[in-house]
């Protein structure tokens, strides 16, 4: 298994040192820092193909290449009560944007349990894992677009 992108690993490791109460406070602060997709990238109504499957908080994901050929990730969370989805969007957007595509492509979906703890309902888990998976899928697609030989190497 590949290493997590450095910024994500650092953030997750910090969360893991906190007790439940402090972890929740940190995640709430991250949710409060969330900034939705800029109008330059997307405007409502958002297209269905950008919607995260299985996410009941109505999360959407977009991406665009940056100078080095890696991706910048953008999110929208339409459910005003979707605070966990906002926290995760904030984490993924800040820690994976610009990270190496092969590292992003291999972020495991169950990273959500290291972030939120094991006390997630099945529905909430599926939605949050769907957000991670959609970012990974974007990275894989970008790798295939820029380096087609990768497509046959297992990614």
């Amino acid at each position, binding site marked *: 298994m590949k290493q997590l992108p450095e910024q994500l690993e650092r953030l997750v490791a910090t969360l893991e040192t906190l007790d439940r*109460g402090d972890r*929740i*406070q940190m*995640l*709430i602060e991250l*949710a409060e820092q969330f900034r939705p997709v800029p109008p330059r990238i997307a405007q409502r109504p958002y297209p269905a193909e950008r919607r995260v*499957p*299985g996410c*009941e*908080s109505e999360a959407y994901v977009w991406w665009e290449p940056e100078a080095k050929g890696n991706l910048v990730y953008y999110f929208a969370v339409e459910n*005003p*009560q*979707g*605070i*966990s989805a906002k*926290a995760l969007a904030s984490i993924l957007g800040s820690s994976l944007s610009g990270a190496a595509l092969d590292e992003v492509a291999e972020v495991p*979906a169950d990273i959500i349990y290291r972030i*939120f*703890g094991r*006390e*997630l*309902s*099945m*529905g*909430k*888990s*599926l939605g949050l*894992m*769907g957000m991670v*998976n959609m970012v990974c*899928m974007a990275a894989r697609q970008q790798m295939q677009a820029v380096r087609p030989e990768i497509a046959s190497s297992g990614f």
Partner: protein
Amino acid sequence: MSKGIGERGYARTDVLVSTDWVEQHLNDPAVRIAESDEDPLLYSSNHIPGAVEIDWTRDLNDPIRRDYLGRIAFERLMRRIGATRETTIVLYGDKNNWWATYSFWLLQLFGHEKAKIMDGGRLKWIKENRPVTRDVPRYQPTNYQAPERDDTRFRAFRDQTLKHMEGKLPMIDVRSPEEYRGERLHMPDYPNEGALRGGHIPGARNVPWGRAVNQEDGTFKDAAELRKIYTEENKLRPEDEVIAYCRIGERSSHTWFVLRYLLGFSKVRNYDGSWTEWGNLVQAPVENPSAEARDEAAA
């Protein structure tokens, strides 16, 4: 705007309270307000002043096996939130009160009948700009004494559900039409619904839980509208034995609440094993219109 709760023709009006009622009882020592959410961050982000959190996963589930907490753990929970058998527990939460009705259902397994749901849930309270806080209240622990959990009246297990199905008794699948039809919901590489097979229990009718709710404010529809859905369209009768199920039992607890309390069905049970159990059971009968349609097309 919804009618007042007393004007909606419900079979029981004592189990549902308005946001106004809750605001008027914020300091009522006979009332304990409790928030139950799916999102583990919501309560800590803010909540109704004085409200305690009842966390579905940590507080109400057995930590090891798939079951609910037993009597001693339930007593510990109720003592911690400062409740006695005489305390009225008012539940509210996210997702149109899915998790609040789930907690309400569980309170009934322990016979705590003094319980109410706040109509419209958390979102209605927030939209009405009512007071919220991040302060977590502490209450004097009580000596709550609970009876053993009674799983016979309101809970259905898989063998009972199988017999129910074989007897062609009414069953309601409250999931989305796509889940009911067994259509693939997720793109490749995405997690599935936690079940190896899609579709529904043979004979179950699909009545998505959300049909019972007014979309504009999350309140329950009035009794005439609910009867139209459940008794006219779906031919259920209040004297019927009905089983409701969904994926893990949370959405179906919402429908259980509607049928039992708002429409007065006396014999309705929640199959909490739901599709995550049935869809994984070896040789369990399944109807999957989506797969059957694909097979026909391929033939």
